[in-house]
C-alpha cells in the first residue's frame, strides 16, 4: 500500500516536488481499469498532469491547453526517471 515507507510512492512524491507539482491526494474512485490492475497486486497511482483545467471529461467541448499538455510531458520525464531507479 502507498504508505510513507513505500519506495514507489516516495519516488513519485520526490519527482513531483522536483517538478514543482503540488499534489492533492484523494482515495481512488472504483470506476476505472485501475480496479483490475490493483487486483493483480500491482501498486499504482492515478494521475493525469492537468492543472488550471476545467473538468470536462465525457462533456461537450472537452479541451486541454497545449501549454498544460507540454508541461505534463516534462512532469512525466521526472516521474519516469524517478520510478526507474526505485530499489524494490
Amino acid at each position, binding site marked *: 500500500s502507498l504508505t510513507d515507507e513505500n519506495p514507489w510512492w516516495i519516488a513519485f512524491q520526490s519527482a513531483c516536488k522536483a517538478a514543482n507539482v503540488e499534489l492533492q*491526494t484523494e482515495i481512488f474512485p472504483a470506476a476505472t481499469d485501475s480496479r483490475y490492475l490493483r487486483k493483480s497486486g500491482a501498486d499504482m497511482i492515478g494521475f493525469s498532469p*492537468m492543472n488550471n483545467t476545467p*473538468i470536462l471529461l465525457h462533456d461537450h467541448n472537452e*479541451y486541454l491547453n*497545449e501549454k498544460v499538455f507540454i508541461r505534463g510531458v516534462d512532469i512525466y520525464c521526472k516521474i519516469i526517471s524517478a520510478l*526507474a531507479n526505485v530499489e524494490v
Partner: protein
Amino acid sequence: MTSAAVENIAVTRFREYLRINTSHPNPDYAKASEFYKKYADELGLTYWQVELPQNRVVDLITWEGLEPTLPSIMLYSHTDVVPSFPEHWKYDPFSAHKEENGDIFARGAQDMKCVGIGYLEAIRKLKTAGKRFKRTFHVTFCPDEEIGGLTGMIEFVKTKEFEKLNIGFALDEGIANPGEEFRLFYSERNVW
C-alpha cells in the same frame, strides 16, 4: 508570425491521435493500432499486441531496461473514448482544433489521450537525452475501458502475457483540476 511557425512535436502527435475516432459504439481500434506501431518505430521502441477474446487487442510499446528481470512499470491508458454529440460542440470533436491561445478541443483531450501521448513524448525526451534505465517500461493501451473493461483489462490481466510483464508499479489516469494543484488518486491495496 514566426513564433507560431513550428508546433511542438508532442502537440502534433497528440492532435494526430485525437483525430482517430475511437469513440463507442464502434471505436476504430485498427487505426489506433497502426498509429501506435508507427509511433514505436519513430521512437525506436518495440510495438507488440496481446490478443483478447471478442476480437480485441491490447497494444503495447515497450522500452526495455538494462535489467529486464526487475519488476517493470506499466504506463497505462485506454484507447477508447465516450460518445459525443457534435451539435453541442464548437468544433468537430475529432478535428483536434487548436485555438489561438493553445486550447485543443477533442473528445479524449482530457480522458485520456493526453496521458498516453504524455508517456511516449516523455520517453522520447529521455531517450534523446541518452538516458537508459534498469527497469523496463510498458506503455499499455487498452480497449473498452469506457464500457467497463469486461472485454478489455479484465481479460488482459488473465493472460500469460500479462503475468510475464511482472509489473511492480503502474500509472493510470487521474482527473483535471481547475486550480493550481494536481489531483492524485491512490488506494490501499486489495480493498475490493
